[in-house]
C-alpha cells in the first residue's frame, strides 16, 4: 500500500496544507495551517531519522531504505519510486527545518498571505518530492514543481527589480532543465544492456551500469551542467544575485537554503552515480569551474554594498565548494560536500531571514546607509554575528566542520592539479573573513548612521523563533559533527568505492 510508506507523507503533508490553505478565510487561519503543517513536517523528518537509524542499527545495509515503487506510466516504465539513504535523509531534515523557519519568517506576509503560502507549499512539495524519489522522471517532475512557483513568488511578492529578476531566474533555471531533460532521456535509452527493459529507476540503472563510455562523455556534462545551474556553478550563477535580491525573505531562505541544494544533490545522485567513467574523465573541467566559483564568488562579495548581493555571492562561493567537493570523488570529500550543503542551507537561511527582518525595519539593504544597529536591535545583531561566524568557519558552528572535511578529503589527491585547486579553495577562508567582517563592522558596529534608525525595535517573538531554530541547528552540526558525518559517510562510501 502506498500509505504505509513514511516517505510519501513528505509530499502529502504539503499538499494537504495547500488544500487547507485554499479554504482559509483570514490570516489567522493561514498561519494556523502553515504552522501545523510545518511542525508536522519537522516532526516527521525527525521521526524519519530515528526510524532510519533504527533500521541501520538493526543491520539493514541495503543502499536505500523505505524503498517502494508503483507503476505510473507503463509505456516508458515510469514509476513513483521512493527510497532514501543517509544523504537524502539529512537533506529532508534540512528542508523541514528551513520550511519551519520560513513560515515564521513570513508571519506578517502582506499582501495576499493565503496565496503566498499556497505557492510556498507547492514549492515545498517539489523539494521534498525530489529528495524522496529514486526514479529519474519523478525526480525531474518534482524539480520542475519546485522551480515554477519561484517565478510567481518573486514576481508578485518580491521587491526592487522583481519582474526582471523573476524572469531571469526562471529562464536560466529552465535552460538548465533543458540540458537535464536531454541528459535524462539519454540515460533512459542506455539504461539497460542490449535487449533489457529500459528503466528510469536510478538504482537499477546503476546496477546495470550499461551506459556506453562515448555516451557518458555527452550525457555527463548535460546532467552536471543542468543541475550545476541550480547549484550556482560559474559561469551559470548570475540568476542567483538578482533572484535573491528581489525575492521575499522566506523565498530567499528556501531557495538558497534548499533549492540550491537540489543542484548539488542531483549532480551527485544522477551525474556522478550513474556515469562514474565520465565523472572521472571529465572531473577536471568542472573542478576548474567550481574552483573558480569558490574564489570568484568570495571576491565579488567583498565589494558589494547590498546585503542580499553579498549573501548571494557568498552562496556562489559556498555552493561552489559543494560541487568542488563532490568532484573530488572520495568519501571524505563527498561527506564534506553534504555537510556543506546542510551547513550552507541553514546559515544562508539564517542570513536571509535576518536580512529580511532588518530590511523590514530600515527599508534599505545598502550597508553604506546603515551602521551601529547592534545597539538598536541586539537580538538581530547577535544573530547576524553568529551567522557570519558560521559562514567564515568558526569551530563550534557548522561551516567549520563542512569546510575542514572538504579540505581533508580534497587533500587525498596528491597530484599537482588537485593540490593547487585545493589550496585555492582553502584561500576562501580568508576572503570569507574579509567580506563577513566588513559587513558586520559596517552594519552592526560603529556609530548609528541614520537618526531614524534609533526608533526601531528589536525582533518579535515569531522572528526570534525562526532565528533561534536555525541557530540551534547550526550549532548542533558544529558541536556534534560526528553524528551527521556518520550518517552521510556511510551512504557516500559504497558509491565512492566506484572510484577507488
Amino acid at each position: 500500500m502506498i500509505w504505509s510508506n513514511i516517505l510519501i507523507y513528505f509530499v502529502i503533508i504539503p499538499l494537504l496544507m495547500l488544500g487547507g490553505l485554499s479554504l482559509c478565510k483570514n490570516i489567522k487561519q493561514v498561519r494556523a495551517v502553515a504552522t501545523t503543517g510545518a511542525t508536522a513536517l519537522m516532526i516527521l523528518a525527525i521521526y524519519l531519522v530515528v526510524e532510519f537509524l533504527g533500521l541501520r542499527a538493526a543491520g539493514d545495509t541495503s543502499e536505500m531504505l523505505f524503498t517502494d515503487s508503483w507503476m505510473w506510466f507503463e509505456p516508458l516504465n515510469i514509476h513513483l519510486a521512493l527510497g532514501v539513504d543517509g544523504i537524502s535523509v539529512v537533506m529532508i531534515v534540512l528542508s523541514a527545518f528551513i520550511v519551519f523557519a520560513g513560515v515564521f519568517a513570513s508571519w506578517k506576509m502582506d499582501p495576499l498571505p493565503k496565496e503566498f503560502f499556497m505557492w510556498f507549499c507547492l514549492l515545498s512539495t517539489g523539494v521534498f518530492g525530489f529528495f524522496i524519489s529514486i526514479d529519474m522522471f519523478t525526480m525531474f517532475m518534482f524539480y520542475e514543481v519546485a522551480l515554477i512557483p519561484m517565478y510567481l513568488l518573486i514576481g508578485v511578492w518580491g521587491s526592487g527589480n522583481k519582474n526582471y529578476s523573476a524572469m531571469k531566474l526562471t529562464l536560466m533555471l529552465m535552460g538548465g532543465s533543458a540540458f537535464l531533460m536531454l541528459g535524462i532521456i539519454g540515460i533512459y535509452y542506455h539504461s539497460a544492456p542490449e535487449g533489457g527493459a529500459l528503466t528510469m529507476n536510478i538504482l537499477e540503472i546503476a546496477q546495470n551500469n550499461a551506459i556506453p563510455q562515448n555516451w557518458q562523455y555527452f550525457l555527463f556534462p548535460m546532467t552536471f551542467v543542468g543541475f550545476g545551474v541550480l547549484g550556482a556553478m560559474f559561469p551559470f550563477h548570475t540568476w542567483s544575485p538578482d533572484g535573491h535580491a528581489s525575492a521575499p525573505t522566506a523565498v530567499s531562505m528556501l531557495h538558497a537554503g534548499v533549492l540550491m541544494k537540489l543542484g548539488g544533490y542531483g549532480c551527485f545522485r544522477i551525474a556522478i552515480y550513474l556515469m562514474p567513467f565520465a565523472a572521472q574523465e571529465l572531473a577536471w573541467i568542472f573542478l576548474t569551474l567550481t574552483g573558480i566559483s569558490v574564489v570568484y564568488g568570495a571576491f565579488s562579495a567583498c565589494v558589494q554594498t547590498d546585503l542580499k548581493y553579498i549573501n548571494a555571492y557568498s552562496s556562489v562561493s559556498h555552493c561552489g565548494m559543494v560541487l568542488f567537493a563532490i568532484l573530488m570523488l572520495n568519501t571524505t570529500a563527498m561527506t564534506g560536500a553534504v555537510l556543506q550543503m546542510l551547513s550552507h542551507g541553514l546559515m544562508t537561511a539564517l542570513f536571509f531571514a535576518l536580512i529580511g527582518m532588518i530590511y523590514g525595519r530600515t527599508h534599505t539593504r545598502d550597508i553604506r546607509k546603515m551602521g551601529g544597529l547592534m545597539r538598536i536591535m541586539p537580538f538581530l545583531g547577535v544573530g547576524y554575528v553568529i551567522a557570519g561566524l558560521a559562514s567564515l568557519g568558526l569551530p563550534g558552528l557548522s561551516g567549520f566542520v563542512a569546510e575542514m572535511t572538504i579540505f581533508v578529503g580534497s587533500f587525498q589527491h596528491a597530484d599537482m592539479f588537485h593540490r593547487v585547486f585545493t589550496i585555492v579553495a582553502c584561500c576562501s577562508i580568508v576572503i570569507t573573513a574579509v567580506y563577513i567582517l566588513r559587513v558586520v563592522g559596517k552594519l552592526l558596529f560603529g556609530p548609528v548612521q541614520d537618526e531614524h534608525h534609533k526608533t526601531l525595535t528589536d525582533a518579535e517573538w515569531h522572528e526570534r523563533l525562526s532565528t533561534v531554530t536555525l541557530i540551534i541547528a547550526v550549532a548542533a552540526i558544529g558541536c556534534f559533527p560526528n553524528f551527521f558525518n556518520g550518517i552521510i559517510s556511510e551512504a557516500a562510501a559504497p558509491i565512492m568505492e566506484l572510484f577507488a
Partner: protein
Amino acid sequence: MELSYTVAVLIIPLVMFLFLGIAGVKMGKKTAGIIGTLAMLVTTVIAYAAAFTYFFGTDQGQVIDGVRQQITVMDLTWLEFTKHLVIKIGVLLDPISAMMLIVISTVSLMVHIYSLGYMDGERGFQRYYAFLSLFTFSMLGLVLATNIFQMYIFWELVGVSSYLLIGFYYTLPAAVSASKKAFIVTRFADLGFLVGILILSYYTNTFDFVALTSDPQAAISTAGGATFLGCSVMGWALTLIFMGGAGKSAMFPLHIWLPDAMEGPTPVSALIHAATMVVAGVYLVARMFPLYYVDEGALLIITAIGAFTALYAAAVACVQSDIKRVLAFSTISQIAFMITSLGVARPELHEGVGYMASMFHLFTHAMFKALLFLCAGAIIHAVHSNEMSAMGGLRKYMPICHIAFLIGCLAISGIWPFAGFFSKDEILVAAYGNSTVWGVWLSVVAGMTAFYMFRLYYKIFWWNNPDYGHHTPHEAPMTMTFPLIFLGLVSIVAGFIPFGEFVTWNREAYHIHIDWTVAGSSIAIAVVGIVLATVMYRKENNIPEMLANKFRGLWTAAYHRFYMDELYQFITHKIIFARISRPIAWFDRRIIDGTMDLLANVTNSASFAIRRMQSGSLQTYVWFYLVGAVAIAVITIICLI
C-alpha cells in the same frame, strides 16, 4: 585516572560563557562579574591542582627513567574524516601544558579581579565577562590539545574571542577596524597553518601530537623524500605551520595587528595580547619541537624571523608616544626572543637549553608583562589618556602602581634578582651557544629593551609635573591594586623557580647553572640602557628632542613603524580590493551577466522581427503562400531534371 578532573578547567569556563552570554543581560552587573570571577577562581584552583599533581605526583608511570610522561587524560572522538585522520577533543598533560595551565589561569584570574574595578560602570559588563570566559576556555583548550587539529580548532576560537574583545567598544570605529584587522591578519596566517596541517597529516596519516613527536624521524621519512619546489614537503609543512604561529605571535611581517589590538580594554590587552594568546605561536613550535628539530631549514627560518622581529619591534618601541603601543611593541620583541630561543635550540648544545629558556621566558614574561599592562590600565584609568604627554610625576599620586611598574621594568630589563634576568640569561646562553651572531644580536636588543622600558617609566612617573587641574590622579581601588601586588611579587620571585627541573625539551630534569660571563655582560648592557634612559628622561629636558631632530629620518620612520601599516593598506586596498575584487565584480555584472542579458535580448529582438510575419492580414499570407508554392515547384523541377 587520577588527573581526570582536569577536564573541569575546560567545562567551567565554557558553561560560564554560555550562562553569562544568555542569562547575563537579565542579571545585575556586579552579580555577573562576581559569578564570573568566582568560577574563574575555581578553575584556577583546579588548574593548579592538576599542574602540581602532574609535577610532584608520585603516581606510578608519571615519571619513567627520569622522563616525565605525557598523560592523555581524555580523548573523545569529535569528527572522523577517515579511519586514521580523526579529530579528537582531549586533554594532554605534559610539562609545557601543565606550565601553561598555571600561566593562563593565574593571569586570567588576576584580570577577572582587576576588571571588576576597571570595567566598573561600563556598558556591556556582563558581555565582557562572558567573552573573558570564552577566551579562557579556548586558550586552555588550545594548550591542552592532544592533536594538532584540536589545537587548530581552539586556535580559531581564541582568535574570535580576541576579535570580540578588541571590538568590545563596538561603537568606536577605531576599535571595530582594529578587531577586523586582527582577525583577518591572523586568519591569513591560519591559512598557512591549515595547509601545513593538511600536508603533514597527508604524509604522516595522523593528527596526534604524541604519535607525531615521539618518533619524528619516522614521521618525516613517511614523506619518502617527496619534494616541492626543491624543498622537502615536511619542510614546507613545518614552515607553513610556523606561519600560523607567527601570525598569532605577531612576528614580522604579520605583527601589524597587535599594536592596533590595543584598542580593546586594557585588562584584555594584559590577558590576551601580552600574556597568553600571543604566545600561542611559541607554544605551537615548542609542542612540535621534535619535528622542527629534524628540519634544519625550518629552524633557521624561525631563528631569522624571530631575531629580526626582536630588533625591529624594539626599535619601534623606543619612539612611540602611546604607552600601550610601547608595551605592545615590547611584547612583540619579547615574544621574538622566545621564538629565536626555540630556533637556536639544539639538543646537543647545553642539553637543549634554548627550549627550556623559551618556555621559562614565556612564563616570566606572562607575569611581568601582565603586570605592566595592568599598571598601564590603572594609569590610563587615572589620567584618562594613553599618551605619555598627558602623564608625568605620577609617582606621588599612585605609589603602589609606581612600585609595581618599576618591578615590571626591572624584570623585563633583566636585572638580578627579578624574574626576567633568569629567563633572558638562559636565552642568551642558548643564542651564544648556537652562534655568536645571534648572541650579540639578542644582547643588543636586550639593551634596547632596558632603554625603552625605562624611557616609559620615567616619562610616566618622573619627567615633568603637568597641571592635572581639579582632576588629580589617584590610586586605583583595591580590586585593581591587588592583582598588581600579586603579580609584582611573582615577578620578583619567579626567577628562582628551578624551571629546568620541570620543563625541558626531552622532559628530563636539567640543572640550570648561571653562566656569569653571559649574565654579567647582559646585566651590564641593561644597566647601560637604564642609565641612558635616566639621563634622557628623568627630568624634563631637550635631549630627546635634540636627538630626534638629529636623526629625523630614522626617528620618523620608526615612529611610523617603518611604514608597515601603509604597505599593508596599499596591498589590501589598492591591490586586492581595487585590482582584484572590483574587476571581478565588474566582470561578473558586465561580461557574464551581460552575456546572459544579451542572449535574452537577441531572442527578444528576433521574436520582434519574426512577429511581422504573423500580421493577420490575408494578403500577406497569400503572398507567402504563392512564393512558397513557386519555390517548391522550382526546386522539384530542378531535382527532377
